[in-house]
């Protein structure tokens, strides 16, 4: 299984995009604009998630010099 944090974030983007495609397709099937509005909300959520996630990735890389998600196990929280 892949543990690279950059790939994890990219895969999250792919999954959010898939959910957005489902919303837009359903909205255009019934001719309602609600699906597109849900896609706009997904877009805002994905943008904020990527901003915070990439800032966390930068902090972790400066502390551990590694991008493996398993190396964060030594955080005692």
């Amino acid at each position: 299984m892949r543990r690279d944090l950059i790939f994890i974030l990219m895969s999250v983007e792919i999954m959010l995009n898939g959910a957005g495609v489902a919303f837009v397709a359903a909205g255009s099937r019934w001719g309602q604009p609600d699906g597109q509005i849900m896609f706009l909300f997904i877009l805002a959520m994905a943008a904020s998630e990527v901003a915070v996630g990439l800032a966390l990735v930068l902090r972790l890389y400066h502390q551990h010099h590694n991008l493996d998600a398993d190396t964060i196990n030594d955080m005692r929280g």
Partner: protein
Amino acid sequence: MEVAFYAAGTVAVISTVLTITRLNAVHALLYLVVSLLAVAVAFYTMGAPLVAGLEVIIYAGAIMVLFVFVVMMLNLGRRAVESERRLMEGTIWVGPSVLSALLIVEVVFLIARARLSGLALASGSGVLAPKQVGIALYGPYLIGVELASMLLLGALVGASHLGRPASEKAEVRYDRNSDGSRARSGGNIVRAGFGRSPDAP
């Protein structure tokens, strides 16, 4: 429209599968950009032109630029120069170029067909115009817009707090020193009043 939709969907599926199977992050990012552009063309053929434009501008433009910046920042040094050389001389860019060429042929076909049939570019039956989306967005979904703005503000503050430079330890030490000096001077003040005669008012 159906042929264009299925072509864009095929390009999107192929480039997404190639995204999650690449080992190098830059190659995966190239395929991810192509995948998002293909999804944008699919949105356009589905009759959602506003969302297609936002997909290109925000997803493929802004979010992918963030990813590219972070990958570049994490990849400094001699190793980066070698990987850049391999990127330039290899045949890595052939796959994304072929898939994007398919997409641009499709977009040119759509524009030419709309021009020939005399219609506006995104009109016809089943197309949800941006006007309808805007009216619904600022009508019943106004609370959602407010929540999205608060979420974006929180993400902005959080990202700038997490991404601050790591030199704040010096500030913390300076704060501790100033606190100590203030405590010492407070002690002096107490000692100055301590020796007064007890019958003074």
